[in-house]
């Protein structure tokens, strides 16, 4: 049709007018490091696996997870989840229950028999891993994936290290532990148990290993000198828990005092309750705020009838009566004597005052530096002896299972780089996606799903697992609480809110791009991006 001049125009002709010339700043898409990923000692891509779980892709989620950590069912139970502590959602309502979803995925993998990714072709290199705790298992897994042959040795009759001998079954059922360990062993690992390595250098040479990873843990319970009668039952917590794990629990009597304020002290007290102690009292020299044990554990212990004497030290124990001295905190927060004493009727005293590492096997390695009772290592976990790496509790660390898993991964990468003659440069990390970068208005309101807890009565008397798992619905819900901090999750907000239609949607999984021919630089997309994945940068010139 002939159109009247000027008055009637053909549709969409304004695309000839490139309003991008109005712009003084331009939006750009960025990826920032989510605080959970940043905080995870195992280096998990938490946001990545939550993203898969959000759409119900649990196996895909689990596969993202085990890229970094082969023990999700275990970590989903024993990890103290610094990811949740740093979770930005905590500042909206409550942190995402990352740990619970991890456990859900781990359990699902066991239930469905998902197998770990197949190892890379054989490299012909051999690595000796000493110690089958979380660090050793993690290193073994990652080394196998890289195609290296691994011999995994442990002094105990069964694999697991502190996971098995330090963590009570009510926190970590043995079936779960066994299943995840078996899955790693199934990757083709040479396992040697009941074998304590006496000399690393000799062992390496004899076995013609190209590298060694030392992950012997901290198995020796620290003792302090407490005046005690000969008949007094005094046992260290590590030995106590180890014997319980070996089905050989010591007889402690009905009134048990545990001395110490860490998680091990709580494990010991709670285990004592389960073994029949009517009174399990923790004596700790400072107050609750300063207790190193995790608050969640303390809460559960108190719920089970464990009592705590805050601000008290053990003075002496004659086998029936324990004398404690009351303390007070000075201005710096350190405990000081008060000179006031009190007696507690006590059948046994469990010392939970920390653990030490037995490093005698390193005596032949003059180059390995031991300081403060632990092996000094580089960022890639190599000791000062080339080819000898160390991690877990034997290296400087916070001595948690998750840190150990992270050490194992880093050591495996370090060993791989060492074997290839390369250097394993730490990867560049994006800036952290802090909460002030988010627009949290967009996230649906949703409190956190609570893992059901066993009824208290039941859990006081047996070793059944205390904290239950999430149902599928619950796990999905929890995963969807993730804010996807700092990484586009394709919510279409930028695409929708642009008044100039200057955002191009590239299709599922492909995210978006800006059409700078038309973007006027108003910045609405940045302001309304829920997860802070867009930034304004000044135009050049």
């Amino acid at each position: 049709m002939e159109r009247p001049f000027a008055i009637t125009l053909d549709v969409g002709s304004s695309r000839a007018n490139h309003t991008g010339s109005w712009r003084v700043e331009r939006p750009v898409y960025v990826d920032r490091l989510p605080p959970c990923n940043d905080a995870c000692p195992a280096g998990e891509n938490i946001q990545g696996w939550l993203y898969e779980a959000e759409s119900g892709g649990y196996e895909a989620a689990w596969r993202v997870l085990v890229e970094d950590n082969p023990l999700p069912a275990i970590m989903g139970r024993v990890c103290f989840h610094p990811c949740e502590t740093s979770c930005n959602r905590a500042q909206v309502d409550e942190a995402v229950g990352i740990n619970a979803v991890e456990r859900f995925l781990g359990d699902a993998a066991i239930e469905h028999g998902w197998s770990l990714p197949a190892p890379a072709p054989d490299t012909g290199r051999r690595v000796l891993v000493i110690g089958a705790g979380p660090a050793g298992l993690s290193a073994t897994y990652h080394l196998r994936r890289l195609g290296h042959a691994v011999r995994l040795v442990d002094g105990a009759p069964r694999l697991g290290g502190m996971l098995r001998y330090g963590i009570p079954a009510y926190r970590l059922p043995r079936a779960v532990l066994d299943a995840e360990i078996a899955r790693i062993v199934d990757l083709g690992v040479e396992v040697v148990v009941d074998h304590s390595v006496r000399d690393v250098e000799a062992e390496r040479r004899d076995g013609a290993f190209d590298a060694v990873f030392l992950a012997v843990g901290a198995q020796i319970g620290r003792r302090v000198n407490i005046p005690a009668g000969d008949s007094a039952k005094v046992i260290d917590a590590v030995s106590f828990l180890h014997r319980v794990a070996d089905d050989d629990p010591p007889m402690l009597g009905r009134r048990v005092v545990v001395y110490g304020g860490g998680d091990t002290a709580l494990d010991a007290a709670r285990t004592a309750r389960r073994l029949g102690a009517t009174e399990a009292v923790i004596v700790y020299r400072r107050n609750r705020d300063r207790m190193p044990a995790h608050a969640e554990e303390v809460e559960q212990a108190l719920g089970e009838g464990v009592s705590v004497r805050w601000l008290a030290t053990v003075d002496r124990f004659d086998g029936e009566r324990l004398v404690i001295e009351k303390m007070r905190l000075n201005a710096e927060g350190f405990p000081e004597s008060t000179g006031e004493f009190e007696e507690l009727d006590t059948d046994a005293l469990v010392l939970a005052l920390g653990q030490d590492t037995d490093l005698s096997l390193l005596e032949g390695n003059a180059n390995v530096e031991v300081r403060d009772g632990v092996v000094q290592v580089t960022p890639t976990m190599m000791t000062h002896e080339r080819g000898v790496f160390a991690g877990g509790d034997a290296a400087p660390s916070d001595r948690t299972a998750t840190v150990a898993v992270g050490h194992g991964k880093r050591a495996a990468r370090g060993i791989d780089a060492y074997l290839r003659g390369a250097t394993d440069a730490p990867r560049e990390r994006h800036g952290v996606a802090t909460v002030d970068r988010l627009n949290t208005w967009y996230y649906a309101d949703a409190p956190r799903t609570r893992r059901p807890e066993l009824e208290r009565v039941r859990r006081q008397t047996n070793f059944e697992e205390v904290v239950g798992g999430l149902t599928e619905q619950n796990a999905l819900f929890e995963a969807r609480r993730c804010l996807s901090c700092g990484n586009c999750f394709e919510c279409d907000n930028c695409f929708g809110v642009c008044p100039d239609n200057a955002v191009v949607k590239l299709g599922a999984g492909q995210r978006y791009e800006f059409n700078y021919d038309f973007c006027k630089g108003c910045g609405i997309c940045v302001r309304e991006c829920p997860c802070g994945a867009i930034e304004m940068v000044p135009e050049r010139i």
Partner: protein
Amino acid sequence: MLRQLEGSRAIAETVALCRPEVVCAYPISPQTHIIEAIGRMVKDGSLAPCEFINVESEFAAMSVSIGASAAGARAYTATASQGLLFMIEAVYNAAGLGLPIVMTLANRAIGAPINIWNDHSDAMAVRDTGWIQLFAETNQEAADLHVQAFRLAEELSVPVMVCMDGFILTHAVEGVDLLDQATVDRFLPPYEPRQVLDPDDPVSIGAMVGPEAFEEVRYLAHLRQLDALDQIPVIADAFAELTGRASGGLVHPYRTADADTIVVAMGSVLGTIKDAVDRRREAGDRVGVLGITSFRPFPIAAVRRALSGARRVVVIEKAFSLGMGGVLATDVSMATLGSTAVLSTVVAGLGGRPIPRRSVEETIERAGRDQLTPLSFLDLDDGIIERERGRMARTRRSGPFAENVLRDLRQAKEGRP
């Protein structure tokens, strides 16, 4: 079929034969009878399909017509006087958008003072809007012009206003030969819009046009009006061929061939003038009359041709431009440029003031004696004027003179000084 009926009724029935699809109505005298009748026909189903919409103002009436026309419907409305002024923004807009709306203007004076009777002030107020303005001499011609108006509007994509004198024609009952549907259908094809809102072919209609193109847009609209000068006679001829009636066209000369003095006028007064001309002819004066049917576009060439032999041109018009003089006369003067003819303007019939044949004859006589001033007012009551001028001279604030004039008239009637 020739019938004796009211002018408005004749218009209504003729418009209905033109199959309008959307008709808007807002009451204003003296146009009301037309739309009332159309409304009735839509309601009883005799005019279908047609949407008859009672709107809340003339502004809305024209706006609804704009929307309907832009969406491809044949749109019609009618108005007068204040109503036309109230819709004037939309009147301009309809023309600017090139929408072939047809509107009856029942010519009426414009207030204040408010006045419901006939003159041409309303039509003159919109002469620059871009509408074609056709003036009817009789109800027959008024009816016929509507049929031609739809065809003209739609061929050129320009709106057309058919002007007929309020009351004098609209309310006069006289013989009108109404066409039948088949004849009208033969003459007027269905509306095929030049531009239309259509989901299957989207366009943007009504863009903002800046200095870079506005003058061109306006010039093109002017050319469209010049095209109409060609089309109007063609359509009138076609109509004449079909009906045998000489309705429409650009001008209607009457006894002008050998005339020394030619009166120029528009609308129903032409009949009275023709009578006066005949009387003067009987008295031996060589006079004639030129009726202007197409006021916009103004047929300069046709007027010049018709007036070429005259020594005197007398424009009798029912409107004037205050502070200047005749409106039609100004246009006529463009047609007599270069000629030696003397042009006089006689303003007559304002606000329904009767125009008696005798007064017209006297005017012609005076013209023949070269006694007409360039601008005069027919049958002006000089006494009233003098009294009001005197009052204004005495006191600076003499009040609204309309009221003064009415008081004077009352006093005169009651025989008081």
